Each structure stands twice: as C-alpha cells, then as structure tokens.
C-alpha cells in the first residue's frame, strides 16, 4: 500500500479499478508494397469506417456537447471527403509503391504543413483538423483502438496525464467513478468537469499513478487530495465505511435540498450554483440551487473555428435563463486570455498570460467580441432575472468603460426596435488584489460583487494555481486571502451592496462558518455541493460565527484555521472526515 498526495480537485471518496487513459503513439514505417490496388482498397475501407465513426461522434456531440463542438466533427468529415487529399494519397501509393498507412501519414502531414505555413490563425486550426483526421484513418489502418476510452466497459477511475475537453466528450460518464491526473490543478478542465458531475477527483498526483496497470485497485480521496495505490483489505473496508457514511449524509441533505438556507438565528443566505451549460442548469435545479451565481460563457467560444454569433449566444443564454424562470442568473462576460486556445480570435501569446490582456481587458479593446455578447445577454434577459458581471477588474475606470459599452449596446438594440432587458444589476468579479484594496471605491460603481477566490488567491499569494510545486501556497484559507475577503464584504455592505462568492472556497464546508461570519450574502458553487452547504448553513448561528471569523483572521496558517473550525463546529469535522 502506498499513499500519494495530490491536489484535491473534487470532493468525495471512491474505490475502483484503474483505467489508464493512454494516447497511443502511431508509428508508421516506410515500406514498399507490390500490390498497390490492394493498398488502395484498404485505404478506401479505412476511410469509410472513419466517416462512419465521425458521423456517430457528430450525432453524439450534437446531443451531449454544444453545437460548436459538433461543428468540428463536421469539418473533419469534409476533409475526409476531399478529392485532392484522396487523389494525393492514391497517387503516392501507385507511384511510390508505399503502404496506405505511410501514404496517408505523409499526405496529411504535407497538407497540414501547407495550412500551418499560411501564418493565419484560421489555417493553423485547419492544420490540426487535418492531422486529427489523418490520425483517425491511421488508427483504423493500424488496428489501434479508436479512442482510449473505447475499451472502457466497467465503472472505473480514469487515470491520465491530464485530460482535454475533446478527450472527455467521448467519455461515457456513467462509467466514471473518479478522475486521477498526474498533472493539472484544482481548476483544470478535469477538476471542473468532476465537480459538475459530483465525482471525486485528484489532480497533480504525480507520474507514479501512470504506472498503475488498468484493472488494479485504487482508492481516491478527492476531499483530501490523496491517492492510495495497492490498498490493503483493511484500508478498503475502512474507506467503504466512509463512503457509506458520506452517502447517508448526502441522502439526508438531499431531502432538504429544496428548503431555504435559513441560519439558526434566522438569517437567510442565498445558495446558488456555478454552471457552464444547460446540463449544469438542470443539475442546479435538481440540487436545490436558488439560481446561478456564476454562468461561465467560455463554453460558447471554445473548440470552434469562428466567433459565436449574437443570435447563437442569445439562444444559448435564453435556454439557460428559461430553466431558472425568475430565479437570479449572474452571467459572467467572456473570461479568456492568451493561455486558452482560441485560434480564431487571433490572440497573441503573452509571456505571462495570467497577468496579461485577458477577460475584461481583452473585451474592452475588442468590441467585435464584447458587443455581440452583451447584446445577446441583454436580449436574453427580457422578463428574466439576469445580472451581468465583468471579470478581472483592477480599477474603477474599467467598470465605467464596460458599463459604457453595455449602454451603447442597449441604445443600439432600442434603435433597432429589439426588446432588451432594462434595470438589470451589474456587478464585478473581485479577484485582483487591487480591486479588493479599493473595494470601497468600486462598490460605488456596481450593484454587487462576486469574489473569485481562485484568482484572488493566486494573485495575492503570487502562486500559479496550475503549478503543483506551489500548490500548498495556492490555498484560500491563508489569512491574507481571508482578510481581503473581509475587506471586500465590509466595503460592499457600507454601500448597501450585496456580495457573493463563486470561487472554490464558497463550496468548501470548512469555510462555510467563516464566510457566514464575515457576512457573505450569496454562496455559489458546483451544483452537487449545494445540498451540503445549505445543510451546514441551517445548522449554524450567524451571530456566533462572527466571533469565530474574527478569531480565524488572527491565526497564521490554513492548517491552524481548519483545525480551529473543526474544533468549534464539530459536526463539520465529521462531514469532511
């Protein structure tokens, strides 16, 4: 038995067989073949199979993922049907007497290089598409499994280096009991996906997890961020008991999920969800969320070749708003920067993209991106409880600039005679220390704040949240971060504005008493955490937690703070054990 420490990425415990998610390398050697006709026949058969595969993935992506994801596969289909590509491959087989595999690989490479050389972001993306398609045909010719997950047949813990959105589109989520990645962080794609599904996950567990064979048993503790390899019978029994206890507690909190989060002394706290698509919206409602504290809009922009149109965005936002009726939905405008792969936006790579021209900074210089989104949101918000929030605000003038663009959009829509939402609340994410420091000034410019603890923590502690080496510093329980949170809440309340929190800390049971004590008005988290946090809030006395929060701010380390909370509120200690 061996215990490894990683980063807690999604709460919960699971025991299961390992499934190694391996991307096989495709090795193709050059070899001479006498029977060219036979090779051409092999090629044609492989292409037909590839077409069938892509068509079925396309159908699947249409129902499961966004339309934008699906579009990529349609582009793949067109490449596969391309007469130039096909005649090139065939010509190569006939004149050079090489195998179908080799001819396919070489030709895909040539076309891909040609596209990549055109020094245009759009073509760079097509270059990747051609290689993807070429590799699919190669896998078929070589008899390599279509996707690493094709052989996933029983419920398993997915173990991988790291996973991308395209890796997980094809994953049968009903067969995933946990995620364990060697790299990645608490905020990587895998972590966000796992939290949305309510599945335990550990990130950054190190290369040793990749050496575990498929089928071997592993215990994953996503709450503590631990991975246990080759567990003893005793350890398995112990964890099975914990899983059972957790399930009982979860079932109990689920029973009251739809009741309000009213503290013992009668303070009503809003508990809402972080979502990024319509599935998340449904999951929120099932888990008793009272609305949305963070609607991420990036999903509309990723993995596609052109900007989403205003109409497309309007449809997507409206579909989500419709799920919530009159419940509040806080839409965050586009939050991307040079670290995200959005080739068609033509973003320049920056040496430090977390400190670069991202999120609102980017939107303010790119009205071609910003305005369609704001117009779509204003139109979608008609007769709904929509609120708009700007991410990555450092100064008050940025808020004024953003509001000006919003007013321009409203004026345009009115002039065009299109209905648009009036009197909607406008807020900002407080996630940059400078914004926290001048929160008193910013509070005059907005209707609400939402504290983004992931970035606030990263910028305050100067610790890259994607770097496992400094993961211990990337902890929002540090008093430096908690004191900033107090400043933000106090500044907003002085101006009679409300404050929410949509970072990870809001869904962390050990933080609930502290945040309640600091006066947080709205807690926003991944939908599966909603019932638990509601239950905790209902068991606490808000007045008493003020004293607890005051003491916590005087402690020095996250460990001391967490121990203190467990001591003061023993029932939470049980919940997180």
């Amino acid at each position, binding site marked *: 038995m061996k215990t490894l420490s990683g980063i807690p990425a999604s709460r919960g415990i699971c025991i299961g067989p390992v499934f190694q998610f391996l991307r096989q390398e495709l090795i193709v050697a050059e070899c001479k073949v006498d029977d060219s006709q036979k090779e051409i026949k092999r090629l044609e058969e492989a292409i037909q199979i590839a077409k069938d595969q892509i068509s079925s993935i396309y159908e699947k992506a249409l129902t499961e993922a966004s339309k934008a994801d699906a579009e990529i596969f349609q582009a793949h289909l067109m490449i596969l049907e391309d007469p*130039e590509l096909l005649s090139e491959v065939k010509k190569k087989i006939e004149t050079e007497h090489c195998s179908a595999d080799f001819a396919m690989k070489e030709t895909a490479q040539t076309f891909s290089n040609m596209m990549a050389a055109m020094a245009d972001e759009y*073509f760079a993306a097509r270059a990747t598409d*051609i290689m993807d398609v070429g590799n699919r045909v190669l896998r078929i010719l070589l008899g390599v499994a279509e996707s690493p997950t094709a052989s996933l047949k029983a419920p398993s813990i997915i173990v991988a280096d790291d996973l991308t959105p395209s890796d997980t589109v094809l994953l049968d989520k009903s067969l995933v009991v946990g995620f364990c990645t060697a790299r990645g962080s608490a905020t990587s794609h895998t972590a966000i996906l796992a939290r949305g599904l309510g599945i335990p996950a550990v990130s950054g567990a190190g290369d040793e997890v990749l050496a575990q064979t498929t089928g071997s048993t592993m215990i994953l503790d996503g709450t503590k961020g631990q991975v246990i390899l080759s567990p003893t019978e005793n350890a398995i029994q112990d964890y099975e008991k914990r899983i059972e206890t957790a399930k009982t507690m979860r079932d109990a909190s689920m029973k009251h999920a739809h009741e309000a989060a009213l503290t013992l002394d009668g303070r009503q706290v809003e508990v809402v969800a972080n979502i990024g698509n319509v599935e998340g919206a449904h999951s929120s409602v099932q888990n008793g969320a009272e609305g949305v504290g963070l609607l991420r809009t990036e999903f509309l922009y990723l993995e596609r070749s052109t900007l989403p149109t205003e109409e497309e965005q309007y449809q997507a936002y409206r579909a989500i708003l419709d799920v919530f009726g009159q419940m509040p939905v806080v839409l965050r405008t586009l939050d991307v920067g040079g670290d995200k792969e959005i080739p068609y936006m033509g973003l320049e790579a920056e040496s430090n993209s977390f400190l670069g021209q991202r999120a609102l900074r980017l939107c303010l210089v790119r009205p071609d991106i910003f305005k369609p989104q704001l117009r779509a949101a204003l139109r979608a918000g008609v007769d709904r409880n929509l609120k708009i929030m700007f991410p990555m605000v450092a100064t008050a003038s940025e808020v004024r600039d953003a509001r000006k663009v919003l007013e321009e959009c409203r004026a345009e829509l009115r002039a065009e005679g299109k209905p648009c939402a009036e009197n909607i609340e406008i807020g900002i994410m407080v996630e940059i220390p400078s914004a926290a420091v001048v929160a008193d000034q910013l509070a005059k410019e907005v209707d609400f704040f939402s504290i983004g603890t992931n970035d606030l923590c990263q910028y305050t502690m100067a610790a890259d949240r994607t770097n496992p080496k400094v993961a211990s510093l990337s902890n929002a329980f540090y008093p430096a971060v908690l004191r900033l949170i107090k400043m933000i809440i106090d500044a907003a309340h002085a101006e009679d504005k409300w404050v929410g929190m949509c970072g990870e800390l809001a869904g962390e049971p050990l933080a609930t008493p502290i945040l309640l004590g600091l006066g947080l008005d709205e807690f926003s988290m991944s939908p599966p955490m909603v019932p638990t946090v509601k239950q905790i809030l209902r068991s606490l006395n808000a007045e008493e937690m003020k004293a607890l929060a005051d003491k916590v701010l005087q402690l020095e380390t996250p460990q001391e703070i967490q121990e203190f909370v467990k001591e003061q509120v023993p029932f939470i200690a049980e919940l997180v054990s």
Partner: protein
Amino acid sequence: MKETTVMVNNKVGLHARPASLFVQAAAKYSSNIQVSCKDPDTKELREANAKSILGVLTLGVFQGMDITIKADGEDEAQAVEVLAELVKNNFGED
C-alpha cells in the same frame, strides 16, 4: 466548357463557412470544376479543384479578389451559374 469571373465581396473571403458552402455546392455537379484567382502580389495564376475544401482554402481568396469559375461537363452551364450566384449573394451571409 463554361466560365465566368466574379468578385468575392463577403467579409472573410473564401474561408471558413463560405468555403465549405462553396465546396458543398460544387460537389453537387458531375462536371469537372476549377476555381482560379490571381495572387494579389505576384499576379501569378493559382488554380484549385472547386470540390476540394483543402484546394479552395489554400487558394487564399480574400475580400475584394476576383475568382474565375470554370466547369467542363454535362451540367457545366448550371454549375457555373449557381456557384457564381452563391458568391454574388455573399454566401447568404452578411
């Protein structure tokens, strides 16, 4: 053989969705269809199979450039007419 020359006026030129609409339309005809344009810098003539998305994309046709559509086969007249119309209508966009 039939041929006609039209100016590409839509914003992105023969790229992205317009390129794929063009290729899909060309694929409906049995005629052999070629599309060509002059390189704006070198004035060199570039030509591609109109039924090939890769060919059409690598032509690099941007807004304001003239393209020549040439068809040879049974349905050549209709092919040239429909494809030219598609370009003139800005591919049904903007």
